[in-house]
């Protein structure tokens, strides 16, 4: 090859690099065989403790759920996972149609008009939605109402700072308010009055941004039903393993009139000269590669493969399967709550509030209790006082279809003094 190029060595191709910059090589160990590589990586994996699904009662944004084997069987197809963003539509119909189906599924689930192709995670989805509201309303304050996931709020703040968007915790919307952001169920698992919050936002001329748990939407009114303008959320529960927090997928869907402000990819229907249906990247004029500094967002690579997983998951479940999964979590969490509150000194932190499958309990000596559970191989609830000083001793527990009745018994037994 060097001969064809007409040079003697690779160095002749590197002539533009100032000699003072040239290295002798990298300060890294020499390469390993695949066997040795896996041995090292496996040794690291073995230094983590993974709790069994059924004995995991901790949520806080990442949940253990049954993942059908079909999901990995699809996402592990090299044709999907080793393709690039579908720039050449005709050679990328597999990815494009899968995203189109994902968009349709998310729109259906949230009751909104249009979903985008995916965002990085729930946190950046909240931030992007706030950005949309900022641009749409021309106002630069967003209100975070109630217990929204603290890390989402942190990301929102970081995003907001760049654009000069103020993030206010609580309070009534007013004419400076671009949007009111709330989480349903909230970070503690409690239901908020989504209708009232939405109404109040609209009354102030602000948008209502609902951050929702996708599985709960098989039970709860979706944002579209109570008039929210933008629905966002974290899609991890839709067929993705916890994986220490990522990669998962942020979803965002909105009303028709906000579509031009949506961040990221959008796939739409198109046809060829013979009238055959196909799918293409659509409304690209919103995006960075066309609009550059005027784009709605800077996002380029997003989370397609995770969106594919979510699409397979939702298609596997279908309407009745998703309802079943949501119902089972609901029933089990309520049964668990009933038993936990009978433990000496334990009480529901917000006894008047409703919940779906995660709920806050006030626990005497919470850190010690959780350590004790860990020793018994149980990943107990999440101590939320870490983020909220006012919630000292409050621990949220979650149940899904993976926590069978015996697992609940085991938890209760392990908690006996």
């Amino acid at each position, binding site marked *: *090859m060097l001969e064809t190029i007409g040079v003697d060595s690779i160095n002749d191709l590197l002539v533009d*690099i100032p000699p003072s*910059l040239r*290295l002798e090589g990298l300060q890294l160990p020499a*390469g390993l065989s695949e066997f040795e590589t896996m041995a090292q*990586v496996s040794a*690291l994996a073995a230094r*983590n403790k993974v709790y069994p699904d059924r004995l995991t009662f901790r949520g806080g944004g990442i949940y*253990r759920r049954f993942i*059908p084997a*079909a999901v990995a069987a699809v996402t592990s197809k090299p044709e999907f996972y080793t393709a690039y*963003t*579908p*720039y*050449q*539509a*005709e050679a990328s*119909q*597999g990815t494009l149609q*899968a995203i189109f*189906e994902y968009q349709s599924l998310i*729109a259906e689930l949230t009751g909104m008009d249009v979903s985008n192709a*995916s965002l*990085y995670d729930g*946190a950046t989805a909240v931030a992007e939605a706030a950005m949309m509201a900022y641009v749409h309303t021309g106002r630069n304050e967003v209100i975070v109402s109630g217990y929204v996931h603290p890390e989402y709020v942190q990301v929102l*703040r*970081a*995003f907001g700072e*760049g654009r000069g968007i103020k993030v206010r915790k609580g309070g009534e919307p007013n004419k400076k308010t671009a949007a009111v952001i709330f989480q349903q169920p909230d970070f503690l698992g409690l239901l908020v009055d*989504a*209708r009232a919050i939405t109404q109040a936002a609209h009354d102030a001329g602000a948008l209502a941004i609902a951050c929702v748990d996708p599985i709960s939407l098989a039970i709860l009114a979706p944002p579209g*039903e109570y008039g929210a303008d933008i629905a966002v959320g974290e899609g991890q529960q839709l067929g993705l393993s916890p994986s*220490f927090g*990522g*990669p998962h997928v942020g979803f965002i869907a909105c009303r028709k009139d906000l579509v031009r402000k949506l961040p990221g990819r959008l796939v739409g*229907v*198109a046809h*060829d000269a013979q009238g055959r249906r*196909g799918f293409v990247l659509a409304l690209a004029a919103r995006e*960075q590669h066309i*609009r550059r500094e005027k784009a709605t967002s800077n*996002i380029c*690579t*997003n*989370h397609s*493969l995770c969106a*594919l997983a979510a699409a397979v998951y939702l*298609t*596997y479940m*279908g*309407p*009745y*399967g998703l309802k079943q999964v949501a*119902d089972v979590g609901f*029933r*089990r*969490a309520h*049964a668990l709550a009933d038993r936990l509150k009978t433990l000496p000194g334990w009480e529901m932190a917000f006894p008047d509030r409703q919940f779906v499958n995660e709920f806050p309990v006030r626990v005497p000596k919470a850190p010690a209790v959780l350590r004790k559970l*860990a020793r018994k191989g149980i990943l107990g609830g999440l101590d939320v006082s870490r983020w909220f000083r006012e919630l000292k001793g409050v621990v949220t527990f979650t149940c899904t279809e993976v926590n069978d*009745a015996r697992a609940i018994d085991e938890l209760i037994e392990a908690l006996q003094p």
Partner: protein
Amino acid sequence: MTEPLSFELSRPAVDPPRLPDAEVSGPAPADVLPHDVLRSHPLGLPRLSEPEIMRHYSRLASLNYSISENFYPLGSCTMKYNPVVNETAAALPGFAGLHPYQDEDSIQGALELMWRLERALCAVVGVERVTLQPAAGAHGEWTALRMIAAFHHSRNENRTEVLVPDSAHGTNPASAALSGFQVVEVRSGPDGRISLADLESKLSPRTAALMLTNPNTLGLFEREILDIAEMVHATGALLYYDGANLNAFMGICRPGDMGFDAVHMNLHKTFTTPHGGGGPGAGPVGVKAELVPFLPAPTVERTNGHLTLDYKRPQSIGRVRSFYGNFGMLVRAYTYILAMGGDGLSQASQDAVLGANYLRKLVEGDLEMPHEGPCMHEFVASAHNLHDSGVRALDIAKALLDKHFYAPTVYFPLVVPEAIMVEPTETESKDTLDSFAAAIKEIVSRAKTDPASLHAEPTRLPVGRLDEVAAARRINAYLQGTSDDPVLRWSPASDGAS
């Protein structure tokens, strides 16, 4: 063959999947929740059996091109082979099953991996620390610019402008704008490099940073990078490195040594985490010492072999993503780095440069080469020479698809008319490059003899050239309320959106 949508394949006769029962006597939602909190519209998800789902997605998969089956010379995208062992590693239960809010002593392996990956990336790009939080390149750019803003702010400097070359990727100006900066464009000179004169004229006390990729998007090394760095630093601004092109020179030189203060890396390009049809990727950002205080929290710290997450970072720009980034992609990248080693990474870059120059040589008789070589890991050609035949870069792209090659990046960078940006990567064999060059030759010669045939391509794919303009018109009609077909999603109304 096209494939119906899952919604169109849906059959009411399909039983739902078997799922666990509640097994406990808790109440049903409708027993305890007020009516208006409950969903009222039926959930319109499709109903397919598992075999039908698997066939559906198998058929969709077969409609894709991918690096696993096709040469994918997408310039700027570094579509190199994704070793399968990466996938095995990320799927290890010790990683995949880990909850992010477990106690620190139960996640030591994960933190150790992150720590080691950070050290390795520092070594490759020549920086002090790296944050692994950003989920992609653009996210990394924005994270870095937030740090740069915080840096200037901490010094009470009010710097409002970010300089971006005209050849830059669209994410650069977009990230700058999102970070609250004004974007000032710097022109490229006739040799394809940034014009120092223009740079000089744009630099000012308002300048917060210059964003640069090197080699630039034309595949050319910015020869005067040391002068550029000096000029930028002299005005008190910082230098930002868009690491999308890092595959050009691992082990050959380092952005840190060139004077870059912040660097993002695309693990999904240089470090073989798969692209997934558009993500997930990972966009870690490396910084020099002066930016370390501003890194997103938490960072991973290691003391006496014990690893901790450090949240106490008072000057931090905060958090840019939930949890700790796309951990699964970090596992893959670390696996790749372990397997390659320092020697393997250096070899990879050398082979990437060799392949690009070889391919450039093969096609230089067929396409215009707007800039002189040698190139680094990629090159930008132009179909401008075919202008008279009416054949455009897009036609060449589509004709390549018919020959089982994915197309190069076209119409980017914007500074080259009819740009065709080719990045072969080091994992392609000479045979593949030869046959790609032969395909280009055939297409270009056909441009001269039978240009109409090129406008008609692709003809061997499941669909022909799709009419994006008509699609956009239909979307407009929907958004303006003159049509019920949402176009951007399936709806029963649109009868399968067909």
